[in-house]
């Protein structure tokens, strides 16, 4: 027995020479040339990242929890609720029962859906129309588009044109003046320009015209960028409120959700048109906090629903536009 032990000895120094001395396993992703991590270095990364995450997610958490809290929980906390302490959907039930919020939700959804559809269709058409090399006039048209990114008449001349065309109080005034984003067209165009020329030539040989090529060759190969551009447009429409202020400031039954958020939550005014609904107890100046927070959450929900699906494509959308534009 002792004999075998001694014969084993010579092999053990070899084992000891293996780099186990470092105590921690080396992260295989760390490049070979980089120094091993230090505790200080790790903290210098981890702490700021933690702060950044907390700065974004903390407020959202507080708002969501408060919107779900019972009146008693809000009273106990003296306002905003950080730790769930008695949850209820009462605020949401009350909110969706209110005619002003319901209408605003429909208005917002309507403007967003119609606006996005209009913007997307004309942008796709224009981007493809300008993406074919050597077509007549595409350089001139491109310059015409790009100039608008740097020169604009500004607020008042635009306002005068829209009202001059009878846009005051009209739905189209909320959509058409801002329907075209040249940036988004450039993003789409740079994708379409990169669609395989072989594929397009093959379709052409088969007798397909440009409409057919756009529909059955180009669009199916650029779904991701289409989705990102659609999101950019949709967010723009969903968030817009200034054109409402300009073109239909007095018609509260046509206000979108963002404008309701501004007047009701931000400025603390009572909701117009809901005197009989008991919303926010109508006569009181400020409605219960949970209800206000529920309105905040409501403006967030559509974004949070589509966000996870599109998040991974942002980089492509932003960069192609920035570089090729």
């Amino acid at each position: 027995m002792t004999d075998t032990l001694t014969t084993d000895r010579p092999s053990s120094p070899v084992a000891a020479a293996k780099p186990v001395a470092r105590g921690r396993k080396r992260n295989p992703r760390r490049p070979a040339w980089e120094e091993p991590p230090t505790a200080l270095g790790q903290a210098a990364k981890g702490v700021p990242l933690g702060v950044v995450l907390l700065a974004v997610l903390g407020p959202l958490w507080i708002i969501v929890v408060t919107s779900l809290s019972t009146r008693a929980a809000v009273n106990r906390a003296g306002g905003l609720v950080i730790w769930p302490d008695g949850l209820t959907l009462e605020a949401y039930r009350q909110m969706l029962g209110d005619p002003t919020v319901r209408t605003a939700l429909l208005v917002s959804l309507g403007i967003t859906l119609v606006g996005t559809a209009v913007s997307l269709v004309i942008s796709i058409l224009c981007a493809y129309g300008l993406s074919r090399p050597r077509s007549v006039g595409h350089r001139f048209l491109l310059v015409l588009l790009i100039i608008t990114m740097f020169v604009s008449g500004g607020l008042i001349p635009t306002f005068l044109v829209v009202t001059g065309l009878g846009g005051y109080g009209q739905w189209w005034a909320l959509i058409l003046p801002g329907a075209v984003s040249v940036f988004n067209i450039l993003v789409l165009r740079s994708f379409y320009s990169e669609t395989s020329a072989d594929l397009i030539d093959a379709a052409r040989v088969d007798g397909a015209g440009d409409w057919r090529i756009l529909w059955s060759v180009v669009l199916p190969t650029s779904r991701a960028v289409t989705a990102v551009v659609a999101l950019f447009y949709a967010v723009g429409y969903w968030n817009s409120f200034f054109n409402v202020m300009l073109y239909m400031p007095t018609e509260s039954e046509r206000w979108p959700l963002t404008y309701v958020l501004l007047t009701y939550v931000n400025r603390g005014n009572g909701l117009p048109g809901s005197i009989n609904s008991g919303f926010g107890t109508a006569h009181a100046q400020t409605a219960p906090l949970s209800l206000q927070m529920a309105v905040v959450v409501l403006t967030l929900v559509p974004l949070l629903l589509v966000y996870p699906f599109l998040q991974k494509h942002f980089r492509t959308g932003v960069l192609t536009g920035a570089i090729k534009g």
Partner: protein
Amino acid sequence: MSGLSLRIRLRRDRSLLLMTVPTVALLVVFNYVPLFGLVTAFQSYDPLVGVGQSEWVGLYQFQRLFNDPLFWGAVGNTLYLSFVQLVLFFPIPIALALLLDSVLSERVRTFVQSVVYLPHFFSWVLTITIFQQMLGGAGALNQFLRTNDLATWDVMTEPGTFALLVTSQVIWKEAGWGIIVFLAALAAINTDLYEAAAADGAGWWRRMWHITLPGLRAVIVLMLVLRLGNALTVGFEQFLVQREAVGHETADVLDTFAFYYGIATGDYSYGAAAGLFKSVISLLLLWGANKLAHAFGGDGLYRR
């Protein structure tokens, strides 16, 4: 190709041209016609008779503008806010991109990215509502101060710190989104450079100074040019929403000035003059910043 006559090429490309018609029509109506509408700045515009019949007053509106202390107040606020944003906001996306790029775990990186991009999609109304709930008079901060018997501090209505407040709002909303271009530039740096430098004994600081930062230089210069060219644009809705809370002396910037003293009062020509002033100076700034970028050997917006 160019041997074909224009008629044949027009016939060949007619669908392509047709496709651009809706966009071009909208741009002409809502972007180019308003450009000509800028002539109202030299008129005393009367909505009842329109641009054609309104009285021409030459530079009268500009004389009024340059003698208006409210206008110079708005110019001052705009430049001050622009400067504060340049100093405090501009470096943050770069630092955040460097930080994120050094994180090894793919999962952590993706998660942090999806979180910090999120506020970019919030409206200004929503962003300011969130700030109000956190820092406002009835917000989380003061709730905490009150329960601990400390002096309360309503950040949202304090004119003295308004510049810091709006800059922190811009940072909260846009700094995360701003990292995208820098992350891409970082990913484009050849890793062989780092390996060679490390083999030659370059430590973390030297690699950062001699490889990483030069790799980011072109993008940083481009972003700086854009920022300087837009020095007179510091945001519109952000100030519109908060004007009531801190007062117009603090919150009026050039864009909101045109709205409040042009549209809201019906003094259209006056507002148009303010808008034209801003556009002309902005174009000059953009041109100047681009020159500067060329002087430093960068590409700027376009190559020389």
